[in-house]
C-alpha cells in the first residue's frame, strides 16, 4: 500500500479541477449522462466527491480531521469504481483511487472502520470462507451433476456469489467450458477472493485470503485461472499481486475472464455461436472487469522532478472492454447498442467497493440510474459480466418496474451455443 | 457670477447662448416627444471644458443634457427639466485609425458622413446602422446600440473603450484605455472593454441616453471594406418566409449586409423623385425584400463570393426559392449603388429617406426573435388600421442580429408633422402599438417615448437597482434628469 510520503504526494497534487466527476469529456453526449461519480451525482456536497476525499485524506493525516460519521458515509459510499482515477489521469496522473483506498485502510487501522456490515462480512469469511456465512462445505454444491476434471491446466475460480447465490451462473460457466472442450478443475479449497475485504480497507484479512488462494492455485498445478465473476477477476489480477508485493506478470498463473477466454477461442476459429438469439441488448461494463482490471505493476517510487520513472500507468484503457462485445456481436440476432457511458466511461451500478452491503439504498439509486440509461438506448435487455452487478441491476429493474431484462453474459452465451 | 458668465469663462462667450432662437433647435426633434426648452446651449471643445461645465452644473444643481449628433429622432436629447444642453459637435476629431488592430477612435461629434470616407481610404469601414443621417454621430450609434446592418457576431459589440466625464465631473477612461500614458505612451492599445476592476464601464454607459455621463471619445472595431461585392434582392410575400431564409443563410455564416425591408421602406430609400418614384416603387417592389451582400475577402475575393454563392443556392434549393435576383426590376441599376449606400451615411444633399415622404417618421422598434416578426407585423398593422393609419404607408425593417439569433424589429409610421390631426393620430397609434407589442413579448432594450415608463414599471427589479446606480453616480441628478426612469 502507499507509503505516507507517496500518499501525501499524490493527494497534494489535486488542484480541484473537478475532472474526476465527469466522464471523459470528449465522450459527453448529453447533460443527463455526463457525470460519472455516483456519490457526487447523488449528494453534491464536495466531501462526496473524489477531490473531497483526497483533501479529507490530507486533513486526516495532519490531524485536522477525524473519521466522523459523515466522513465515513462519504468514504464508504464511494464505490471505488475508479472512474475518478481514469479521468484524473487524462490530465494530472494522480493515483486518486489508491489514495481513497489508503484512506479506508487508515480508517480500519485506527479502529474507526469499516462499516458494521463489512465487519460482519469479514467475520463470515474468517469463519466460513465466504462473505455470506454459508457453510464452507456447500461451496461446491452448485455442481450438481457437473463433473469437472480432477486435473487440468485450467482452474475455474467460482467466487462466492456464483457458488452460493446464483449457482445457475456457475453452472452456465461450466457448461460453456464443457461446450468448448475445455478441461477445467476447481480448487480443492477455494476461499473468498476477498474483493470487498480489500476494498473496505481490511488489508490483513485480504492478504490472508490472497496467500491462501494463490497457494491453492500453485498446489493445483494449473497455469490459467478462469472466472466469470468480474470481482474475482480483479482480485486475481490486481489485488493478489498487490497484496503479495508482486506484479501481475510475476504471479504463478494467468487470470482470464470467461469473456477473454471465449473471445480468444473465437479469434482462433475454435468457437462459433450456432443459435440465433433475437434480442436488442446493451452491455454494462462492470468496473472490476474494465477500469479496475488493468495488470498491476509493483513499483518503488522513483521520481525525476515530478515524473515517475519506470512506472507503468494504469489509466483504465487496458481493461476488458472488447471481449464481451466481440462475443455479443458474434451471436446472430443480437443487436448491440451502447449506452452513452460505456467502456472506461462506464457508470458504476453500485455494487463495487462494499458499498451495497453497507448502503443498499444508495447502491439501488446508482443501479436505477444505470437502468434509466439502458432504457434510453431502447434495448430490451442489459447484459453484464458480473454476478454481483447482475443481482443488483435485477433488483433495480424490479423496484422501478422497468420493462427490461437483465442477463449475465453467460446466460446469453448459453442461449447461443 | 451669473451662470452664463461662468460658462463663457469655460468655453468662450461665442460658445454659450441663452438666446431663445438659438435654444429652440434643441428643444425639439423629429420624435413625437413633447418639446422642452433648455436654459443654455454650450459648445465645448474638449473633455477639460466639459469637466468644468459638469462641476459647475453640480454646484448649481443644473441639468446637463449631452447632445452629439446634429439630428435626433428619439427625443433623447430634449431637456425635460431645462438646464444646459451640451452640444458636442465641436468634438469632431477622428483621433486615430488603427488598421492593425482594426480600431477607430473618434470624438463624440464625429459623424458617419465624416467617418466612413476616412476609413474607406484605408479599405476599412465601421459597421453602421441602416443609412444613418449624415449628421448622426458615429459614436452615439455605438453608445445607443443602433443595430448594425451586418449581423455577424464577429462584428458586434464593436464599442470597446471610451473616455467619459462622469456626472460628478471626474474624467474616466474605461477598459484598457485606463492605463497611464494611453494612448501614446502605453503598451495598451485600448482594445479591451473589460474593467478596470471587475466591472464593464463601457457597457454601463451604453443605452444610458446621457444619464450616466458625457462620453467624449470612443474606440470601436472597424473591419475590412470588401472591394468586390455581389448583392442579392430576394423577394418574399411575407416576412415569415423571409426570416426563415435569413435563418438558414446565417447558419451557414455567409454574407455581409443582411436585412429585410418591406416595400414601403425600400421605396422610401430608393426613391429619387418624389412622390412619383416612391409611389411607383411602392407598388412595384415585392412586399418584402431580403437584401444580402456577399463580400469578397481581402485575398481572392471572387473565390470567396463564389463559395458563398454556392451556399446561398443550396439554401434556395432547400426552401424552393426559384429566384435569386441580383437586381431590382423596379429600380434598375440599384445593384451598382446599394453597397456604397449601405456603407455610407445618407447623403447630406438629399432629404433623409425617413423624412422625404411626409416630413416626419415615428419609429417603433424593439428586439425579438425572428420567428415572431410576422406576428408583430400583423398585430402592429391592425393597431395602425384601427387608428386610421393607411396600411399602405406602414414601413417595416427587420434587422437580423448575431447570425439570426434575434432581430431588431422596426415599424415606421410616416406622417406630416405640420398636420395636427396626423400628429395626434400617430401619437395615439404609437402609444397603443408600443404597448401591444410589449404585451406580446417585445423587448425594448432601448426604450424611448411613452413606452419607457411602462417598461420600467414592469421591470421593477431592474428599475430599482438602476435607480440606485444612478443615485450613486449622479447624486445631484444633473445628467438628463427625467430621462429613462430617472
Amino acid at each position, binding site marked *: 500500500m502507499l507509503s505516507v510520503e507517496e500518499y501525501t504526494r499524490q493527494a*497534494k497534487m489535486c488542484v480541484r479541477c473537478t475532472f474526476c466527476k465527469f466522464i471523459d469529456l*470528449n465522450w459527453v453526449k448529453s447533460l443527463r449522462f455526463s457525470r460519472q461519480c455516483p456519490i457526487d451525482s447523488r449528494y453534491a*456536497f464536495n466531501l462526496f466527491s473524489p477531490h473531497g476525499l483526497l483533501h479529507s485524506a490530507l486533513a486526516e493525516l495532519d490531524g485536522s480531521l477525524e473519521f466522523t460519521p459523515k466522513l465515513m458515509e462519504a468514504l464508504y459510499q464511494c464505490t471505488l469504481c475508479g472512474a475518478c482515477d481514469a479521468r484524473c489521469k487524462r490530465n494530472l496522473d494522480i493515483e486518486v483511487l489508491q489514495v481513497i483506498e489508503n484512506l479506508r485502510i487508515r480508517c480500519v487501522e485506527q479502529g474507526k472502520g469499516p462499516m458494521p456490515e463489512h465487519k460482519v462480512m469479514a467475520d463470515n469469511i474468517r469463519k466460513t470462507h465466504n462473505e455470506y456465512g454459508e457453510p464452507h462445505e456447500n461451496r461446491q454444491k452448485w455442481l450438481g451433476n457437473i463433473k469437472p476434471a480432477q486435473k487440468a491446466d485450467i482452474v475455474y475460480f467460482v467466487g462466492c456469489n456464483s457458488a452460493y447465490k446464483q449457482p445457475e451462473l456457475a453452472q452456465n460457466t461450466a457448461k460453456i467450458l464443457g461446450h468448448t472442450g475445455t478441461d477445467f478443475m476447481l480448487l480443492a479449497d477455494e476461499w473468498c477472493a476477498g474483493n470487498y475485504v480489500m476494498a473496505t480497507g481490511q488489508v490483513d484479512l485480504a492478504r490472508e485470503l490472497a496467500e491462501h488462494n494463490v497457494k491453492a492455485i500453485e498446489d493445483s498445478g494449473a497455469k490459467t485461472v478462469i472466472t466469470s465473476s468480474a470481482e474475482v477477476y480483479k482480485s486475481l489480477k490486481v489485488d493478489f499481486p498487490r497484496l503479495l508485493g508482486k506484479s501481475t506478470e510475476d504471479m504463478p498463473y494467468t487470470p482470464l475472464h470467461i469473456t477473454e477466454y471465449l473471445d480468444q477461442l473465437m479469434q482462433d476459429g475454435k468457437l462459433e455461436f450456432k443459435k440465433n438469439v433475437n434480442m436488442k441488448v446493451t452491455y454494462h461494463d462492470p468496473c472490476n472487469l474494465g477500469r479496475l482490471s488493468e495488470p498491476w505493476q509493483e513499483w518503488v517510487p522513483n521520481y525525476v522532478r515530478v515524473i515517475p520513472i519506470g512506472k507503468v*500507468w494504469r489509466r483504465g484503457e487496458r481493461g476488458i472492454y472488447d471481449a464481451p462485445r466481440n462475443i455479443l456481436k458474434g451471436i446472430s440476432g443480437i443487436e448491440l447498442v451502447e449506452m452513452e457511458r460505456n467502456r472506461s466511461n462506464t457508470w458504476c451500478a453500485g455494487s463495487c467497493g462494499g458499498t451495497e452491503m453497507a448502503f443498499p439504498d444508495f447502491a439501488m439509486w446508482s443501479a436505477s440510474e444505470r437502468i434509466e440509461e439502458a432504457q434510453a438506448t431502447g434495448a430490451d435487455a442489459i447484459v453484464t459480466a458480473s454476478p454481483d452487478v447482475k443481482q443488483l441491476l435485477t433488483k433495480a429493474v424490479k423496484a422501478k418496474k422497468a420493462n427490461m431484462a437483465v442477463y449475465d453474459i453467460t446466460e446469453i452465451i448459453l442461449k447461443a451455443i | 457670477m451669473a451662470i452664463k458668465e461662468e460658462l463663457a469663462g469655460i468655453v468662450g462667450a461665442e460658445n454659450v447662448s441663452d438666446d431663445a432662437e438659438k435654444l429652440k433647435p434643441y428643444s425639439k426633434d423629429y420624435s413625437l416627444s413633447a418639446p422642452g426648452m433648455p436654459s443654455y446651449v454650450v459648445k465645448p471643445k474638449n473633455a477639460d471644458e466639459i469637466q468644468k461645465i459638469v462641476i459647475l452644473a453640480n454646484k448649481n444643481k443644473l441639468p446637463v443634457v449631452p447632445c452629439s449628433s446634429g439630428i435626433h429622432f428619439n427625443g433623447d436629447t430634449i431637456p425635460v427639466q431645462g438646464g444646459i444642453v451640451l452640444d458636442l459637435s465641436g468634438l469632431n476629431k477622428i483621433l486615430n485609425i488603427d488598421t492593425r488592430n482594426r480600431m477607430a477612435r473618434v470624438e463624440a461629434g464625429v459623424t458617419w458622413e465624416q467617418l466612413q470616407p476616412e476609413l474607406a481610404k484605408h479599405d476599412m469601414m465601421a459597421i453602421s446602422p441602416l443609412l444613418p443621417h449624415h449628421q448622426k454621430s458615429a459614436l452615439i450609434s455605438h453608445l445607443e446600440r443602433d443595430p448594425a446592418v451586418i449581423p455577424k457576431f464577429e462584428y458586434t459589440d464593436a464599442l470597446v473603450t471610451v473616455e467619459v466625464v462622469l456626472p460628478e465631473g471626474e474624467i474616466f477612461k474605461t477598459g484598457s484605455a485606463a492605463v497611464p500614458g494611453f494612448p501614446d505612451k502605453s*503598451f495598451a492599445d485600448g482594445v479591451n472593454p*473589460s474593467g478596470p476592476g471587475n*466591472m464593464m464601464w463601457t457597457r454601463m454607459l451604453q443605452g444610458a441616453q446621457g444619464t450616466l455621463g458625457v462620453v467624449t471619445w470612443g474606440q470601436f472595431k472597424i473591419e475590412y471594406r470588401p472591394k468586390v461585392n455581389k448583392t442579392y434582392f430576394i423577394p418574399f410575400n411575407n416576412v415569415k418566409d423571409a426570416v426563415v431564409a435569413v435563418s438558414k443563410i446565417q447558419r451557414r455564416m455567409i454574407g455581409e449586409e443582411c436585412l429585410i425591408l418591406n416595400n414601403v421602406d425600400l421605396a422610401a430609400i430608393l426613391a429619387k423623385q418624389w412622390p412619383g418614384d416612391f409611389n411607383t416603387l411602392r407598388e412595384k417592389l415585392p412586399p418584402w425584400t431580403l437584401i444580402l451582400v456577399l463580400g469578397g475577402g481581402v485575398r481572392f475575393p471572387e473565390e470567396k463570393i463564389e463559395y458563398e454563392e454556392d451556399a446561398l443556392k443550396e439554401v434556395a434549393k432547400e426552401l424552393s426559392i426559384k429566384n435569386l435576383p441580383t437586381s431590382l426590376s423596379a429600380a434598375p441599376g440599384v445593384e451598382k449603388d446599394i453597397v456604397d449606400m449601405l456603407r455610407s451615411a445618407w447623403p447630406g444633399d438629399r432629404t433623409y429617406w425617413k423624412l422625404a415622404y411626409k416630413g416626419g417618421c415615428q419609429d417603433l422598434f424593439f428586439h425579438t426573435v425572428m420567428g415572431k416578426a410576422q406576428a408583430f407585423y400583423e398585430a402592429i398593422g391592425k393597431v395602425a388600421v384601427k387608428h386610421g393609419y393607411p396600411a399602405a404607408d406602414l414601413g417595416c425593417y427587420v434587422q437580423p442580429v448575431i447570425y439570426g439569433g434575434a432581430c431588431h424589429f422596426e415599424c415606421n409610421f410616416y406622417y406630416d408633422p405640420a398636420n395636427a390631426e396626423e400628429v395626434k393620430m400617430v401619437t395615439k397609434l404609437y402609444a397603443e402599438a408600443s404597448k401591444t407589442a410589449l404585451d406580446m413579448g417585445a423587448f425594448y432594450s432601448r426604450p424611448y417615448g411613452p413606452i419607457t415608463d411602462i417598461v420600467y414599471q414592469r421591470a421593477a427589479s431592474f428599475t430599482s437597482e438602476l435607480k440606485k446606480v444612478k443615485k450613486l453616480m449622479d447624486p445631484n441628478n444633473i445628467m438628463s434628469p427625467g430621462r429613462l426612469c430617472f
Partner: protein
Amino acid sequence: MALSKEVYKALESVVGPEWLSDDPAILEADHVGGSVHGGGDIKRPVCSIQPETAEEVQGIIKICNKYMIPFSATTTNPPPGLDREGVIFIDLKRMRKLEIDEENLYATLEPGVSFAALQGELFKRGLVTFVPMCGGNVSVLANTLNVGEGAISYRYGDRGYRRVLATEWVTAGGEMLRIGSSALQDDYFWGEGPGPDLRGLMASANLESPTTRGICTKMGVRVFPFVDEKLEPTGDAPMTSLVLPSNRFMYYNFVFPTKEAAINAIYEIGKCEIGLFVMTVPPWFFAMARARGSAEVLTGAAGFWDYWDNHEAPLIRENPNQTTCRILLYGIGSDKRLAYEEKVLLDICKEYGTTFAKASRRTTDETHFMSADAIVSNLAGGRFTSVILFESLDHGYKCADIVNVNTKKHVPPVLDDYGTTNWFLPFEMCHICKLECLRFASVEDAGELALLMDDCHKDFVDVGAFPVRPAAERYGPKWENYPEKTRKFKELLDPNNLAPPIT
C-alpha cells in the same frame, strides 16, 4: 465558530435538512482552494448549503443579511472569500436546469451545467459553444461571467461577456435583479437593457471577484451555428478525441522564422477572417503532449524532462526566434470554403516567410471542442503560474519580453523554458489577443513563481500594460483610481459587506 441554532433552523427551512450541513468533514472538503491543501489562510466555512432554486438562494442571502453572516458561493471553482471567519458556503451545484432554443441560438441555464454537457447537447442540434481551456467540466454560467475564453474565441467572441444574454441575479443585499429580456418576461434571449447595460455592473470577464456583488442564478448564453456533420468521439481514456470531418476542418501547423513575422501573419489571418482558431504553440506543449503515456516508460525514456532537455531545448537554442503557429481551418456552410481558407492561409504563409507549412491532416481534436486536455501543464512541474493579459497582439508581444526578462532572474528553481511558453491566442479575429505566459516549478518551489509574477507586475504598471487580476494597491492609483469606484458599487449592492471582498 458555529452557527447559532436559530440561524441553522432558518437556513434549514429554506433548503430542507438534507441540503444543509455543518459537519466538520463536509466543511473541510468545502474550504480547499485550487492549490496545495492548507495553503494560504483559508478558513473553513461555518456551514455548507445547497439551494436548488433562485428563490432558495435569495432566502439564504436574506438570512445572511438579517444575521450579518458573510457568504461565499461557487459551483466548480474553489469558493472565494474564505479568508474570513464564519462564512456560509453556498454550493450551487444542484442548480442544473438547461433549455436550448435551437432556432434562436441560445441556451438558458443554471450554474450547475458544465460546458461538456452543454456541448454534448448542442452537437446533437448542429450547434456549438466555445469551451474554456481550463476544462469542459467547469460551470458554463460561472466561467462565462468570470472569464469565458477558449480557443474558438477567435471567431466566437473575445470572452464570456460577448456571449452573456439576459441574466438573473440575487444581489448581495438579497434583491432579485433581472437584466435584459428577463427583466420583462421569462425569456433570456437578449442581454442588454432596458436602457443602461447593468451586465457591466455585475461582471467583467476579467478573472476578478465574480460574486462580489451578487450571485447569478440563471443566464441566457449565446450558442453558434456549426457544421451538420457529427464529431464522433473515439478512443479510450486517456487518449480520446473527437473525429473531425475532413471536409469541414483542417489543422495546419506552420513555422515562422521570427516572432515578428508570426505576429504580423496572425494579424493578417484575422483580417482575412479565416479559421476557427489560430494560436502560437509553445514547444513546451509539444513536449508535454509527447511525454505522456506508457510508451515512454516502456521504452525506457525518462518522460517529459528527457524529451525536453534532449530534444526540444537544443532545437530552441539553435533557432531561438522560431515560432510555431497552429490554425484550424473551418469549412462551415459550403463545401468549397475549406479550400478557400487553405488557399488564403498558404498565400499568407508565403508572404510572411514561413519555413514550414504543413497541413497536419490531423483529423482528430483532443482539446478545443471539449477541452478534455486541461491542466496538463501541471505535468511538467507540479505547479504553474500564468501571467495573463487581454489586449492587442502587439501589446502582448511587448509584455512577453518583460516576462522573459524577469523569468531569467528566477531560473532556477523556476524551470527554464528559453522564453518559449508565451502563448498567444488572438480573439475576435485579432481585434484583441490573450497572452498567457506559463511558468513552471515543482510543488516545493511554488513560492518562487509568486515572486516572478510580482516582478512582472512591477514592470507592467509603469509601461501601461493591462494584465488581469491586477493588485488594486499597485494598479489602482495608476488606473483611474478604479478601486475607489468599484468599492462604491460594491457597497451599493452589498451594504452589509457580506459577499466575498473584491480582490
